[in-house]
């Protein structure tokens, strides 16, 4: 979790006692062992400051006198980095990378909140209780909260927490994470840790993920939540570091629940399109669609098969197509119509109009008319620009 405040007002901040050290040595997050975790640890909060002047060597911050730490500059914004549950007592591996990424993006006071004593406890419920005093020590400075959910079915929260809540891949199981316990400890921490990697990736401006406001994940997957009108000209908010640009509108909206899907590895961002199909079969057709985008250099494919879609005569069916990578410009599109039926005739989906609209702002939609999609058979065509449509 990470909180940011625009101006640094640290003087009245700390309620928990912590040790003060003014030595020249570098401070690290407290390193504990599994033994400590099994025995249980009592809460102790330390604040470690990193700035561009000391980006690799953390300095302890005093709650009475933060200015005593030479590199602390109150004119710079502050970014707090707070780790979560540490069942093994080890310091989080991602913290150093996170600090480096934050400092390379912006000149801030990066303050790592080290509460490993308190977070390292085999009793998860005890740790949950400790989060309250930790949060209390800084929350009254925070005016804007963004929360990312990646593991809400295990060590996470299901309900909305912040001004904006992100539910990555629906908020529970993350792509690429083991589904069974046979994969060892990874099974327990993969989903949980993903949030950190997603956040780290979000600092790279070319890999930004757009989050879509929606009431639930299945509506989002069905392409029902692609409207960003409530955010006016700025469009839907991005996930992660740069969401602060949407701070004002999000504060005004109160609470916003958003969804997005990711790849299983970095870069996590997907390339999204709205797919609309108008068919003319006189009987209703059900099925899913596989779509491939190609140009001379790249090719990417996605299967929109999380459910069977209904294609009704002269009715537009909307689907959300999300590709692992960006293919631009698209020169060829391949479509395949797939049904779950086995012992039935090979169905045909008779398409009047196919339209693929990039979700990325400023890119033009692509169309093709009069397609006959025979079940399990690829149909390849060159998309044409879409004009004004009447149906």
């Amino acid at each position, binding site marked *: 979790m990470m909180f940011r405040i625009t101006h640094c007002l640290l003087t009245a901040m700390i309620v928990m006692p912590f040790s003060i050290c003014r030595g020249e040595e570098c401070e690290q997050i407290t390193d504990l062992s599994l033994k400590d975790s099994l025995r249980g640890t009592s809460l102790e909060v330390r604040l470690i400051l990193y700035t561009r002047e000391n980006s690799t060597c953390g300095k302890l911050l005093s709650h009475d006198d933060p200015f005593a730490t030479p590199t602390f500059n109150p004119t710079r914004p502050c970014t707090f980095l707070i780790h979560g549950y540490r069942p093994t007592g080890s310091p989080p591996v991602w913290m150093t990378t996170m600090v480096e990424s934050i400092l390379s993006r912006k000149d801030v006071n990066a303050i790592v909140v080290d509460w490993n004593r308190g977070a390292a406890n085999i009793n998860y419920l005890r740790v949950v209780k400790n989060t309250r005093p930790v949060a209390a020590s800084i929350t009254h400075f925070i005016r804007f909260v963004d929360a990312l959910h990646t593991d809400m079915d295990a060590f996470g929260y299901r309900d909305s927490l912040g001004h904006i809540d992100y539910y990555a891949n629906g908020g529970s199981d993350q792509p690429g994470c083991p589904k069974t316990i046979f994969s060892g400890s990874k099974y327990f921490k993969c989903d949980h840790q993903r949030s950190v990697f997603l956040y780290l990736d979000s600092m790279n401006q070319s890999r930004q993920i757009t989050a879509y406001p929606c009431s639930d994940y299945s509506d989002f997957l069905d392409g029902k939540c692609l409207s960003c009108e409530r955010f006016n000209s700025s469009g839907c908010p991005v996930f992660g570091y740069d969401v602060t640009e949407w701070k004002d509108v999000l504060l005004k909206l109160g609470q916003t629940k958003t969804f997005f899907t990711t790849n299983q590895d970095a870069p996590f961002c997907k390339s999204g399109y709205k797919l609309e199909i108008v068919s003319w079969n006189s009987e209703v057709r059900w099925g899913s669609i596989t779509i491939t985008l190609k140009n001379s250099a790249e090719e990417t494919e996605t299967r929109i098969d999380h459910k069977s879609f209904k294609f009704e005569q002269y009715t537009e069916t909307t689907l959300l197509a999300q590709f692992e990578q960006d293919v631009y410009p698209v020169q060829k599109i391949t479509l395949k119509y797939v049904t779950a039926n086995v012992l039935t005739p090979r169905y045909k989906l*008779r398409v009047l109009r196919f339209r693929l609209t990039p979700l990325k702002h400023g890119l033009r939609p692509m169309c093709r008319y009069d397609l006959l999609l025979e079940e399990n058979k690829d149909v390849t065509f*060159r998309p044409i620009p879409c004009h004004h449509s009447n149906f």
Partner: protein
Amino acid sequence: MDIELNELKPSVNNNDEVDPRVEVHPGNGSCSNHNTPSATEDSRLLSDAQAAGSNGEHCIVAGIPDDQSLNKPVGKLGRLKKELNEPVCWNLKVWMLILISFLLIILTILLSIYFCSVYEEDVDDKYNVAEFVVPRFFRGNFTLLNKNLTLDAQSPPTDPRLILQQNLTHIYTSSHALGRYFINATVNPLRNSKSSVEYELKFMMPEEHKQIILYTLSKEMVYHVLLQELIDQDTGDPLYIEPSSLTMEVGS
């Protein structure tokens, strides 16, 4: 095979008298020899046949009438096995024939499902052109890239007007949605232009066509079917039509 265990009681008068209960009952399904005179110390309780055979195995007992043995489970099973192994013709045995007929039945079911699924016709593939009685026209212009072409009447095989007409006809007859409604295309050079061409497309619709003119035979559809073919055409074609020059209006 079940063999009921009977209690064997020692005879009262050793060797002399035979207790009727001692005798192994043939109904027990065991392979006892019913003809064993008596169970004495000298004679064996079990016949040679059973002693030799393993327990539960069928054995043929001599001297037992056939109808009696029929009532025994052992006999039934044995007979069945025997009958199954009887050759019918050539080397084919009964059990082989039964297996073959089963396989044939399954094969017939699978084949019929397969053929039904492949050959079942789609309702949208069936239509009667005679029912299409209401005409619908589309008219418009397009420009040829080749400005040096003369579109005036020439001998039929090279007449560019006829070739354009054929090209338009081909585009619409091979259209999945529009092909069935398409009648013909006519092309005429525009009077004041060398490379501009005027065209007319004629379609016939069924009596009930309220939805058809909104969707399938809408201007958007008829226009884009032609436009996408123009975009796809080979740029080296002497009759290359400039896609951006295409216009279309619904005629009456």
